[in-house]
């Protein structure tokens, strides 16, 4: 499991292009249910998750993939937070590709990550933050690699199996950052119309590149807008509808993570979660968390009820203060 070799399916730009050419690219209806959307994920898939750390994480989609008891996944995300921990503890992933994993400085190094990675249950393949971004960008461009000046000379090169290339003009050594074509992308956006044209406020993170890189794109949206509203502000559209395969309307679809301008992350919830891990260990604590928040509540609304309306409203006020 811990082999450093790149898997050809990650960078095979010809195969990735054929896969896209064979796929319908409809301008039609994309709205569906959350379980139907998650049904696009198969065991063993390489899935890329949009947003970054605890910002605009598509948690409703992640939850549904876990409820479908998927196995053998490779999870790719530039900075990983609680969604990665839940995937590890649920036994859904065998490999994660990331630049950094934990919740944030106040909560220390992730004990869940340490438990599953140090025991060998999950392989953590580390790339630099820019290198992962460029892997998605190369794939979004449809090319097998992009030259760059990062990761050179470090031990990260051997971990991911990255190669170097000589600049044909100057002869300088450059990093040949390989493309990464995910099977499925999971994304959460601020607003979209029923045809899948999506708009994002605030941090764009890597979502636009991830959507172009993936074979299948699943999106949840905070707000559903009309076709007319999309056409009034087309400059705000970051994902065209033809590349989206499934769209689900899920207000608070990132909670307890944040959604820029709409609600701040629930830091108290993170503290309660990590306190329980400190007290009872990763397997027992996260196991119970999965039952309470993932496997138990049948719908996302039932899930949000566990937090309660007052908590959601407080996080909404907090977001307004910070962005106005």
């Amino acid at each position, binding site marked *: 499991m811990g082999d450093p070799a790149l898997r050809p399916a990650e960078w095979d730009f010809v195969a990735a292009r054929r896969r896209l050419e064979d796929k319908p690219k409809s301008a039609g209806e994309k709205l569906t249910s959350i379980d139907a959307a998650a049904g696009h994920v198969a065991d063993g898939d390489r899935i890329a998750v949009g947003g970054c750390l605890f910002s605009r994480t598509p948690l409703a989609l992640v939850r549904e993939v876990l409820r479908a008891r998927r196995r053998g996944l490779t999870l790719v995300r530039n900075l990983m937070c609680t969604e990665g921990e839940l995937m590890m503890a649920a036994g859904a992933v065998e490999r994660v590709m990331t*630049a950094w994993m934990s919740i944030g400085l106040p909560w220390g190094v992730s004990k869940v990550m340490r438990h599953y990675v140090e025991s060998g249950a999950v392989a953590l393949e580390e790339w630099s*933050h820019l290198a992962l971004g460029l892997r998605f960008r190369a794939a979004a461009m449809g090319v097998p690699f992009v030259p760059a000046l*990062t990761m*050179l000379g*470090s031990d*990260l090169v051997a971990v991911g199996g990255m190669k170097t290339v000589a600049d044909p003009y100057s002869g300088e050594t450059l990093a040949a950052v390989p493309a990464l074509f995910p099977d499925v992308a999971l994304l959460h956006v601020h607003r979209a119309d029923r045809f899948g044209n999506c708009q994002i406020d605030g941090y764009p993170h*890597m979502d636009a590149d991830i959507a172009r890189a993936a074979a299948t794109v699943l999106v949840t949206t905070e707000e559903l807008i009309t076709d007319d509203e999309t056409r009034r502000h087309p400059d705000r559209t970051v994902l065209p509808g033809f590349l989206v395969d499934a769209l689900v309307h899920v207000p608070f679809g990132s909670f307890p993570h944040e959604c820029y301008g709409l609600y701040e992350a629930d830091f108290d919830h993170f503290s309660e979660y990590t306190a329980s891990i400190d007290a009872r260990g990763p397997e027992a604590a996260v196991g119970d968390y999965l039952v309470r928040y993932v496997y138990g509540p049948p719908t996302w609304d039932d899930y949000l009820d566990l937090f309660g309306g007052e908590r959601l409203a407080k996080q909404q006020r907090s977001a307004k203060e*910070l962005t106005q």
Partner: protein
Amino acid sequence: MNATASELLAVQGSRVLRDDTTVFAGVGVPLLAAALAQQRHAPKLTMVIEGGIIGPRIKPGRLPISTNEMRAGHRAQMLPGITDTFLFAQRGFLDYGFMGGAQIDQHGNVNTSVLGVDYWKPKVRLPGTGGANDIASLCKEVIILTVHEKRRFVPRVDFVTSPAWLDGGDARRRAGLPFGGVSRVVTTLGIFGFDPETRRMRLDALHPGVTREQVREQTGFPLLEAATVAVTEPPSADELAMLRALDPERRFLG
């Protein structure tokens, strides 16, 4: 006024930053150092945060916890994507980068990935590089801010997450990094530079009251010493007051 370790690092770090420059600042002490410099002597300094933020105005008492959240982007001038933010550094727009780490070696290389000899079977799995490798590779000048402890200052890091001078000499250049590198290591005991030929770490200045002996005891490799080892100016009452106003809850100042 007595300064805590974090306050000392933030103040000393802030003094390195010149006006009319740009700095890649991570959350915690680096961000406080940059914000302090901006308030005191470098009003034309632009902060860049790796989550995709250019020119934020940090809200006192609402310091960001991650580089990718609303608190970090408060009153920012631009929110580019993450990849594009790093590409500003690859192009050469970023003058300074701050870093810290679990291990630092005599050539300034930093480890934030794994402790132990086998990456795939780590004794301790650490959070990882995040953007540290990119900052170390791409900024014009990198400054390490760290507590000075023997377990951190090792002859050779277990894993080179972020390259400084690699094996010394012109190793960095040969690896394909013809620019940048760690210029200074600011610790709780003093300030360190690197010999321009061998790229070995060199004691340049001690904080008031710290002896060379203390530094040697807390360093796991032989240090070079500058011909004249200076003594740093302690944090002023002014600097500490400004710093404490930024973090009244002492979330990062300890």
